[in-house]
């Protein structure tokens, strides 16, 4: 691995928002490198955010070294930003992204691309539908395709330990349905140390990538698997086809690597880093 030059280390700061302040890190290109673009990053949620921090930071430095300024923001109630997760709302997150987008456009005047990982990618797509500023390109890393499925998977973490006790029909059955019923009654639920509000759950439930075809900007979609020869999964292929029917330019990239957002061990994914950097043209046209 080549060492990162000190000039591409990030600049941490707090961005004031209507609900407090969001922790941000700005990675500017070194002085000797011409600015040729800017990228706003949306992180995944829960443990996936912690597990992917390092890879996101490494990628941001690689972008900056190549002339692409990057802004990473911890959304409201996440990471080092103000608010508890219980106070987090989908709309607040989109408002945070809008502020960050504006900050980036003002401080790194160049075409802005949006980059998101997992649920962060789905949030980016939803944000972009009503974004006031133009988007040059979407970089989706293993995007979550359906908010409802994601929420069920997340609620399921509560029952991991009892997952396979006995046979069908035992006492853990309807576990996620019981949690969903609590949410429907207006109660928060706690899973894996995160308190989820009914409002956030309801908003996540309603997001579906099928209906979020990005109107402006090209899309580079990256999926990570143990084998590069694999075609896009049936679920991914379905959405890409739907988007292409709406004349959206989507390129699917399959890269070899591990599901780093799900692994407790610190990992790297050089193939993903290289393939992602390669989609940005070397010269601004």
């Amino acid at each position, binding site marked *: 691995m080549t060492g990162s030059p000190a000039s591409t280390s990030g600049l941490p700061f707090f961005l004031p928002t209507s609900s407090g302040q969001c922790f941000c890190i700005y990675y500017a290109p070194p002085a000797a490198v011409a600015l040729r673009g800017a990228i706003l990053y949306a992180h995944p949620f829960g443990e996936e955010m912690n597990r992917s921090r390092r890879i996101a930071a490494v990628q941001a430095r690689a972008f900056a070294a190549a002339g692409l300024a990057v802004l990473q923001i911890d959304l409201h109630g996440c990471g080092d930003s103000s608010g508890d997760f219980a106070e987090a709302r989908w709309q607040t997150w989109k408002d945070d992204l809008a502020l960050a987008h504006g900050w980036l456009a003002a401080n790194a005047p160049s075409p802005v691309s949006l980059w998101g990982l997992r649920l962060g990618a789905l949030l980016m797509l939803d944000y972009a539908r009503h974004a006031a500023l133009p988007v040059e390109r979407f970089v989706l890393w293993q995007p979550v395709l359906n908010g409802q*499925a994601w929420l*069920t998977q997340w609620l399921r*973490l509560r029952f991991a*330990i009892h997952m396979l006790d006995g*046979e069908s*029909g035992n006492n853990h059955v*309807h576990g996620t349905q019981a949690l969903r019923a609590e949410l429907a009654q207006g109660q928060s639920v706690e899973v894996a140390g995160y308190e989820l509000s009914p409002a956030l759950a309801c908003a996540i439930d309603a997001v579906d990538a099928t209906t979020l075809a990005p109107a402006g900007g090209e899309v580079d979609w990256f999926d990570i*698997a*143990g084998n590069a020869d694999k075609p896009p999964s*049936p679920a991914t292929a379905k959405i890409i086809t739907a988007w292409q029917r709406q004349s959206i330019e989507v390129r699917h990239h399959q890269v070899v690597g591990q599901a780093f957002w799900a692994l407790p061990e610190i990992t790297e994914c050089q193939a993903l880093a290289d393939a992602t950097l390669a989609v940005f043209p070397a010269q601004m046209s």
Partner: protein
Amino acid sequence: MLDTLEVTQQVIAILNDVLALQPDHALRADSLLLGSIPEFDSMAVINVITALEEHFGISMQDDEICAATFDSVASLSTFVERQLGQ
């Protein structure tokens, strides 16, 4: 529409990815999973379910997640195939 062989192959690919199985542990349709593969613990089950759901665009209900479904590659593939057919 995927046929049985394709579904089984994709299920095996997902199990290999998620469980990070060594090459000498090559899975086949009749390979036993739960209780036979040490890597297949409760967190692995959660991760396999998530990967299957995201890959095939299916959704597993609470009462469908039982030991019998995860008995073997064949039982898991049959389950996925049934979900896809719905």
